[in-house]
């Protein structure tokens, strides 16, 4: 892989307008990645999801060179309909179109900031890979006291032109004081057997509100990894929702640093998997100062050889008195071919805190099925109703009504 990486790196930047200093800087990331390689199960973080092995067996050799110069045609059918929104369209990792038609021009800034990479040098090998190959480092800034009028949908579209390829994508968001942004990520894949590596970095200043909804429901054979870092200042709020279902493999990592008093973070997720899919959600919520709050709810429904993993950590530093941290994961195993792994972790160094976690996994409750059947529904209907209710519980945590309904209709949940 090493030779391939060096070759593809050179090819990627031979015609680039980056100066040699910047390219050398990227090269450092490349060398770090070469040294560390793709993560495998020898790392605690990757204990339940051996990415190196999965890529080897599912894809084989990866190509790291992605020719992003020729533009792709946007097919208008990919847009969500009946739902007013701003959009950014990525096709095969290339930013094709940015459309912020509903927003005031001087309140939103899109720029490139190279320096940002420095802030993310020690996260993990995949972030290093990302930093090595992403040519553009976009920053979307929401100016002070401005709230996005409509949600921003980011379409991550891939088509058949790419195969066995590694795509790297990085976006940065800065929410200045007292701003708000609703962001929806739609993964829409027509390609097969690629490894897609995404890195989002959010900075939430005082009183900022971020709502990020990540939707992966289209069946596809791609392998995905996404790392989201959220830095939160005083009284800011982040809500992350993950609907993880479509890709062959998907690991979503959320790292949230509650740096300011009264900041809060919510992470909710659904892993609805079948057909040998293997998805993971890993969170670490770090309470670093007083009076912060976090809440996490992750539910999985598994059938047909699927595997779900939840690793969730609440960290409370000794300065973070009056922390309120909660975390719950539940899984329903519909068949013996499925597997659920959980590692819910608490690491606490302050005493005046309220922290708890729970994890439960098992079959559907037969008594509940019986109760429903005694009211006239058959076994299949009773089962569906229960699963529906089980998942609805997470969907109902979505605080934006319009997006809640959108997501409900996407997965056909009834209420």
């Amino acid at each position, binding site marked *: 892989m090493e030779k391939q990486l060096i070759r593809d790196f050179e090819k990627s930047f031979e015609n680039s307008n980056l100066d040699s200093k910047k390219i050398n800087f990227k090269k450092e990331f490349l060398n770090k990645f070469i040294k560390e390689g793709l993560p495998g199960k020898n790392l605690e973080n990757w204990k339940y999801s051996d990415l190196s092995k999965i890529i080897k067996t599912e894809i084989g050799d990866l190509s790291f060179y992605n020719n992003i110069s020729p533009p792709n045609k946007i097919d208008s059918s990919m847009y969500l309909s009946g739902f007013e929104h701003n959009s950014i369209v990525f096709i095969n990792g290339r930013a094709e179109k940015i459309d912020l038609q509903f927003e005031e021009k001087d309140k939103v800034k899109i720029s490139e900031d190279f320096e940002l990479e420095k802030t993310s040098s020690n996260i993990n090998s995949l972030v290093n890979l990302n930093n090595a190959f992403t040519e553009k480092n976009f920053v979307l800034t929401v100016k002070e006291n401005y709230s996005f009028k409509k949600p921003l949908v980011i379409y991550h579209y891939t088509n058949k032109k790419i195969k066995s390829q590694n795509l790297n994508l990085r976006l940065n968001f800065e929410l200045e004081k007292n701003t708000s942004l609703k962001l929806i990520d739609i993964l829409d894949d027509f390609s097969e057997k690629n490894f897609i590596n995404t890195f989002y970095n959010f900075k939430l200043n005082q009183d900022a509100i971020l709502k990020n909804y990540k939707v992966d429901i289209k069946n596809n054979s791609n392998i995905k990894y996404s790392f989201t870092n959220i830095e939160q200042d005083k009284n800011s709020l982040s809500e992350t929702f993950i609907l993880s279902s479509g890709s062959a493999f998907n690991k979503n990592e959320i790292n949230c640093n509650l740096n300011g008093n009264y900041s809060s973070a919510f992470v909710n997720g659904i892993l609805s998997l079948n057909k040998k899919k293997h998805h993971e959600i890993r969170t670490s919520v770090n309470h670093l100062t007083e009076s912060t709050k976090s809440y996490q709810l992750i539910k999985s429904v598994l059938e047909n050889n699927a595997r779900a993993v939840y690793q969730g950590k609440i960290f409370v530093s000794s300065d973070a008195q009056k922390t309120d941290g909660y975390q719950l994961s539940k*899984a329903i195993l519909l068949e013996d071919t*499925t*597997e659920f792994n959980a590692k819910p972790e*608490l690491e*606490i*160094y302050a005493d005046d805190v309220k922290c*708890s976690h729970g994890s439960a996994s098992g079959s559907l409750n037969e008594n509940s099925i019986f109760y429903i059947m005694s009211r006239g529904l058959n076994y299949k209907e009773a089962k569906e109703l229960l699963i529906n209710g089980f998942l609805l519980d997470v969907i109902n945590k979505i605080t934006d009504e319009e997006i809640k309904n959108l997501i409900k209709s996407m997965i056909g949940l009834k209420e």
Partner: protein
Amino acid sequence: MKTESSQNSREKEIEKLKKYKYGFSTDIENTKAPKGLNEEVIRFISNIKKEPKWLLDWRLKAYQRLKVLKEPNWQKPKYPKINYQDLYYYSAPKSFKEKPKSLDELDPKLLETYKKLGIPLQEQKRLNNIAVDAVFDSVSVATTFKDKLTEKGIIFCSISEAIQKHPELVKKYLGSVIPLTDHFFATLNSAVFTDGSFVYVPPGVRCPMELSTYFRINASDTGQFERTLIIADKGSYVSYLEGCTAPMRDENQLHAANVELIALDDAEIKYSTVQNWYPGDKDGKGGIYNFVTKRGLCKGINSKISWTQVETGSAITWKYPSCILKGDNSIGEFYSIAITNNHQKADTGTKMIHLGKNTKSKIISKGISAGFSDMTYRGLVDISKKADNSRNYTQCDSLLMGNKCGAHTVPYITNKNSGSNLAHEATTSKISEEQLHYCQQRGLNSEEAVGLIVNGFCKEVLQQLPMEFAVEAQKLVGISLEGSVG
């Protein structure tokens, strides 16, 4: 000036003794193996214990394996590198060269030691209904109530004696739960273990009394590597307790025991530990490294193994008493109280491996950290594909006192069976001002109040202990936290 400072240091000594009342050492002449870890030392140990060749070969095999093993480094408490060549692996009171035939032949100093510990070995002063095996440094010094147990066919003796008298049982079961190759400290133990207890309960026998071993490290620079093997044959029951103390020494001492339990069809083993090794002084100097491997195999159908532990001592504790639930309908339980204060560190928990059908496990863990200490609960529950209709319930609660200490909960949960259910709950909290105020208003001082509340917090686990131990454990809980409230 001089007098004053010696006065001071005396006071300090007294102060120290008050905190850890088992901190005296006994002046007894010892026979020791030469310092260091090598084949010669292993041969020396095996020879002095007159072991059969198969056991010496077994030890040497473990030693070969040890050479390629690395010390585990994934546990949270880190410790300075141990120089294994600078330790004694065998130490026995000189008067023991020939094992005394009866208690009358015992060195009076030894008897005195156990008396100070509250463990009378002379049968006229014996504890009610508890048979005691006392292990002093590396050897078992006395076993009480032998006759009464022999009547029922129960074998309760030191493992050295069992090797001589019941080699077929030892050969069959030794290493059958903790294999030679398991991990560094377990393998080290297999190479150099010196003594420990052996229990065999024959089919259908309900052991009429609690069996107990009392471990004492006395000699300095000595590692203690005891080995305990308990076999409950079909339909039998046994309850076993162990207690441990050590003198206060400024250097750290290594204790790496292996305990193996085997329960056959319909058998039940209850294993309770009150671990009170010297924890080091309040600045973290000295104390025992307690790196213990304890594992039980529910081999037969309907078998049950229940671990209860009260861990208050040691500078570093690193242990996971586990159950392998192989037999259908077998049950594994783990009840734990772990308390760390000052600079103590503990990384403890359990593993419940569900292999058989209808297997059940229950984990109740209560961790309390105070001072500058750090406490980790680490546990694994694994329900395999074939373990239909299995259940696990886990409850882990942590209590923190102050913000200089840490509580870490790290459960690993795997479920591969759709008909099995797993539930895990964990909380972290502190003693509320209201609770303290309430108790104080009723006339308790703050330390008494804390002791009371903490005992309440631990109640579910304390209830599991045999009565004789429960009282001692309750006191221990209070004492361990002394000085932790301002």
